[in-house]
């Protein structure tokens, strides 16, 4: 059975070009980039090239790029560095729909005595900008808001939010793990101080991330050790992965247009067709300000894990915000924050595409989903076909 992979917000396939760029640096050119001799130094030059490639994708300067091990490390570093450089300030502003890397860290910090404000979102997943503005105080050390949501794809106006923080002298961090490579970003045009990105979301391998730190921002390292990354992140460089990430960023820039045209078209087709063919289904998240690859659809009266396992029978990979798949007993915190009713939240499915998806794959999924939902609804005690189809039409 062939795999149809629509879970690219979870992780992506390493691009062939990326893998090819990486391979020599495991076995042939294994030198330590810090070494004095040519054998090591040549690797150092490749790392510099990768730094340039990453910087180019987001409109940054190469020296503003710090390589880390993952998005979570970048998020942790950003928030912790702010708390240690902004002495005397003990307030953090974030949102209710952040990735656990930020959300759980903030809960941890609030247990340690920091005050945390979580800005709510509306039914469409958009940030409450009024509340955000009011939450910024003299005591606020840092704002951390995701650029785009991993579950719904809804994009926050982070550039506007960053300017509001800047006006009040507050540091601003954004988790852009889902955004980089999907929509254009230019750090020259905004006042964001720090930005996290992760390699494995844009066809580079797992285990490599970046923290962008704007030039002139005071910084206190999270991982203390050697002089690597100009003393901002100790530890011997993950050379092959850094080189892979550089290549992936170059490809992402090249594929940006396709991502926002062909991929977006496939996403829209999948979404429109499913919503038309399956009664009592709905889209989660504001449709226009959204990543081009993500669609989060709820199917009423059925449960997400059951849907995923029936899709798995056809080789279709996606993910769900249902309780049973989240490893907890409650549906995703994102859908709950949006006030998605329980009848819908348990049956939510996220499809996330990449440039490697084809129209045939999308047609196949469009063909299978209605049968899968119908099968589960026929088992459900809450499904009363006649009445509910009418209700949905109303």
């Amino acid at each position, binding site marked *: 059975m062939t795999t149809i992979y629509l879970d690219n917000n979870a992780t992506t396939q390493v691009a062939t070009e990326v893998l090819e760029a990486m391979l020599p640096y495991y076995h042939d050119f294994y030198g330590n980039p810090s070494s004095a001799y040519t054998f090591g130094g040549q690797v150092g030059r490749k790392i510099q090239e990768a730094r340039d490639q990453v910087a180019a994708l987001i409109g940054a300067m190469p020296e503003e790029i710090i390589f880390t091990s993952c998005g979570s490390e970048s998020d942790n570093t950003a928030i912790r560095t702010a708390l240690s450089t902004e002495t005397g300030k003990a307030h953090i502003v974030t949102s209710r729909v952040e990735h656990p890397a930020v959300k759980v860290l903030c809960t941890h910090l609030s247990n340690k005595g920091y005050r945390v404000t979580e800005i709510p979102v509306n039914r469409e997943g958009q940030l409450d900008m009024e509340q955000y503005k009011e939450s910024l105080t003299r005591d606020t050390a840092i704002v951390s808001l995701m650029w785009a949501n991993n579950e719904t794809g809804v994009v926050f106006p982070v550039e506007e939010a960053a300017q509001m923080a800047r006006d009040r002298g507050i540091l601003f961090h954004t988790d852009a793990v889902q955004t980089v490579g999907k929509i254009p970003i230019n750090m020259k045009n905004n006042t964001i101080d720090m930005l996290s990105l992760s390699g494995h979301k844009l066809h580079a391998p797992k285990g490599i991330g970046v923290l962008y730190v704007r030039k002139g921002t005071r910084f206190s390292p999270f991982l203390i050790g050697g002089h690597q990354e100009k003393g901002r992140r100790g530890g011997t460089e993950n050379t092959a992965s850094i080189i892979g990430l550089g290549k992936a960023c170059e490809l992402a820039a090249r594929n940006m247009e396709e991502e926002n045209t062909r991929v977006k078209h496939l996403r829209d087709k999948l979404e429109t067709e499913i919503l038309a063919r399956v009664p009592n289904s709905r889209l989660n998240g504001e449709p226009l300000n959204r990543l081009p690859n993500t669609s989060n659809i709820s199917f009423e*009266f059925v449960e997400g894990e059951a849907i995923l396992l029936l899709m798995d029978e056809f080789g279709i990979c996606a993910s769900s915000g*249902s309780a049973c798949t989240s490893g907890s007993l409650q549906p995703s915190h994102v859908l709950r924050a949006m006030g998605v009713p329980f009848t819908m939240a348990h049956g939510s499915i996220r499809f996330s595409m990449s440039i490697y998806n084809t129209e045939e794959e999308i047609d196949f999924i469009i063909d299978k989903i209605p049968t899968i939902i119908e099968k589960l609804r026929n*088992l459900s005690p809450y499904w009363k076909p006649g009445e509910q189809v009418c209700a949905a039409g109303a």
Partner: protein
Amino acid sequence: MWEYTDKVKEHFLEPRNAGELEDANAVGEVGSMACGDALKLSLKVDENGKVEDAKFQTFGCASAIASASALTEMLKGKTVEEAEKITNQDIADFLGGLPKEKMHCSVLGRQALEQALAQYKGEHVEEKEGEIVCECFGVTDLEIEKAIRENDLYTVEEVTNYTKAGGGCENCHDTIREIIAKVRAEEKPVTEPKLTNLQKIRMIEEVIDEEIRPSLKHDGGDVELIDVVENRVLVAKRGNCAVCQASEQTFKNLVEVKLQELVSPELVVEEVPQ
């Protein structure tokens, strides 16, 4: 992704007896959409008190569907008395086991069965007895106590796995801990039946072989059972233990503690000269 047995997958992909019985005379409906799973079990009990037919409707994950499907298969042909004896563990066993986080799916089956049989027997079914402990999932103290007793639970995590209680905001964890402590305190100390001499010697040998010898061997030592006289266990040191001065106290302690713990608290170990 959860690790499901083939049997769970089979009952999920091809559920048996899905639907609603038109002429049911015993119906149980438990769970809710807010909780993430719900089950409606309908049974037809014939004039001889046998379950003639059983059907289910489930809203929930794969293991909730499989548990309900399994339950209907188990019920068919059973008398009401036999059906009453089916526990949530029986449902899980029928499926070759459930992941521990999914045990509440089997509990849901058991609850629906109880309700259906109570209705059949004309018993008044209390809507929800006891006091709500877990606000998130509407679980009462009595339901928690029952799950602790029936499934021998010790921790909050286990209670959550079996009842969902405590799986949301976690505010009730302290109360759940108190309930566990209360149920545990009620347990009477188990009075061990008196062992025959033969049983006692066999058990002592077993404990020496499996529990004591391996740890002595680790240091190159060994022990030999010489005799058992009433509650006196006569042993001799072997290997390094025999020549090690430091082993004097530790040797006797190790053997005695293990035998008292695993065979009988009345045993006394005596070392005999070699």
